[in-house]
């Protein structure tokens, strides 16, 4: 009997996510805000609260974070990360400073503790690589001259996450200062070691793990990732960071082959992760967060516009491209939810959940729309001469 209700419930959840993703695709939006709304509906106080699948969804959500960061790490090679760090560090720093300020100010105004404020700063700062790269390629802007600038901001943010997450995890655990410093140190050393190892011996690891058989490859990579994620979690540098490092270490053929076979798995568990985050938010508390979320959203739009402008100008791009870059960067998504999820798990500040949910829903919707309308809007005011045919 229990199994029957479990399947019915899980099936209904996943099916409704599928329908929502289709809807999102039809209107040209990311499915992430829809998943969050679905989570709200399935949570306590929602339309159809879940009973039997909650535990499964919680575990699935943790796997979702690990897979999100693993696939992200696989996208980049250590070489790319280092080149990017060398050439775009200054815009990256501007991005992080400008975009964490609204979160810090809001945290202070709301009277939150320093750790919750730091978490909110992370939520407001990090753009969504997933949403942004999808929108850029959907709009055929991969070849645009501002695109490398946008991508390098995203890469810098992802690298910064590898340092930020251990800091936050350590602080959330409320251990002694020494322990936190130690775990951050471990994370930094691990990051450096993985970079050096994958630069020097990346091909050795990849060759050792490579198999022309998809099944073997999938099981090996997944097993290795979960193992490393577990060890990382134990060392309090967070499971996600462990998975990200595994992704970076995998290069060449292995990376190329595993990306397509891991992506469907990632999609399932990431959707479950967003639902679980929504689940934890009581819908009625969302209403009271709408005001602060809207203000934060305004600040977040402005700060990303400035970041995009600066980054694109540095690449020698003219005004329309700078505006395209700024609007592209507005979308927040998976990482804001990952950060808020970590903070929520420790139960430090109950208002963070609804605020982050409202903020991400807003920004994940505004971002892609703003990206689309940027060009038609700027063309009204800015019309340089065309090159003759």
């Amino acid at each position, binding site marked *: 009997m229990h199994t029957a209700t479990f399947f019915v419930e899980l099936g209904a959840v996943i099916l409704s996510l599928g329908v929502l993703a289709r809807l999102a695709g039809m209107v040209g939006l990311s499915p992430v805000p829809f998943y969050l709304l679905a989570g709200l509906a399935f949570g306590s106080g929602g339309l159809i609260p879940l009973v039997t699948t909650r535990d499964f969804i919680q575990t699935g959500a943790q796997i979702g974070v690990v897979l999100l960061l693993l696939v992200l790490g696989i996208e980049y090679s250590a070489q790319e990360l280092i080149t*990017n760090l060398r050439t775009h560090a200054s815009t990256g720093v501007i991005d992080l400073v400008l975009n964490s300020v609204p979160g810090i100010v809001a945290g202070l105004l709301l009277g939150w503790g320093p750790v919750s404020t730091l978490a909110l700063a992370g939520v407001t700062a990090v753009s969504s690589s997933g949403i942004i790269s999808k929108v850029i390629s959907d709009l055929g802007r991969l070849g645009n001259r501002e695109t490398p600038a946008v991508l390098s901001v995203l890469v810098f943010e992802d690298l910064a996450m590898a340092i930020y997450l251990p800091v936050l995890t350590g602080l959330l655990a409320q251990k002694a200062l020494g322990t936190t410093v130690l775990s951050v140190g471990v994370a930094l050393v691990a990051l450096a070691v993985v970079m050096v190892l994958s630069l020097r011996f990346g091909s050795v690891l990849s060759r050792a793990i490579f198999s022309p058989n998809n099944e073997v490859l999938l099981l090996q990579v997944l097993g290795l990732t979960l193992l490393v994620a577990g060890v990382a979690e134990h060392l309090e540098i967070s499971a996600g960071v462990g998975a990200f490092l595994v992704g970076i270490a995998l290069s060449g053929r292995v990376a190329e082959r595993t990306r397509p076979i891991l992506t469907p798995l990632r999609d399932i568990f990431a959707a479950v992760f967003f639902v679980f985050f929504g689940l934890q938010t009581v819908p009625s508390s969302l209403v009271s967060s709408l005001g602060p979320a809207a203000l934060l959203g305004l600040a977040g739009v402005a700060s990303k516009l400035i970041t995009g402008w600066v980054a694109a100008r540095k690449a020698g791009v*003219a005004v329309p491209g700078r505006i395209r870059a700024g609007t592209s960067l507005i979308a927040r998504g998976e990482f804001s939810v990952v950060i808020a999820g970590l903070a929520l798990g420790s139960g430090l500040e109950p208002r963070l959940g609804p605020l982050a949910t409202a903020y991400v829903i807003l920004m994940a919707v505004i971002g892609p729309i703003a990206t689309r309308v940027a060009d038609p809007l700027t063309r009204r005011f800015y019309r340089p001469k065309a090159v003759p045919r």
Partner: protein
Amino acid sequence: MDIEETPLPGIGLKHEFTVASGRRIGVISRQSGKRDLLIYDRVDPDACQEEVPLTDEESDALAELLGAPRIVERIARLHDQVTGLLTESVTIPPGASCSGRTIADSLVRTRTGASIVAIIRHGDMNLSPRSDFVIEDNDTVLIIGTRDSIDQAIQLLTAE
């Protein structure tokens, strides 16, 4: 002509340049080996007007049509390529069946996957020979490919 090279993290590499008429064109070389042909906007030279995805075969065909020797790029790719890509040379023995035929007719690329990147004749190097180049006895042929494909190509080129 100034070709600008920009890395696209997570995607690949982009090359672009402005042609004499003022238009800007470019190519994205993806990590997967696929190419995208880029044509930039006439009004906003930073924006891409057209992005045409090309398969390996299509980009080879286009390159051949445009007459661009792709050798330089092939050799550059050697560096970041996973281990296993090699170059090797073989001398055509007198009486080999491929002697007197064009590169296209020798079917080296289609049958083995290896590519002929240069042919050395009487000490003269013919870099990136076109597919209608005729192979002769005692030519030294430089082949690039995986171990297996090179072995097959050598067999094909030396067969009577």
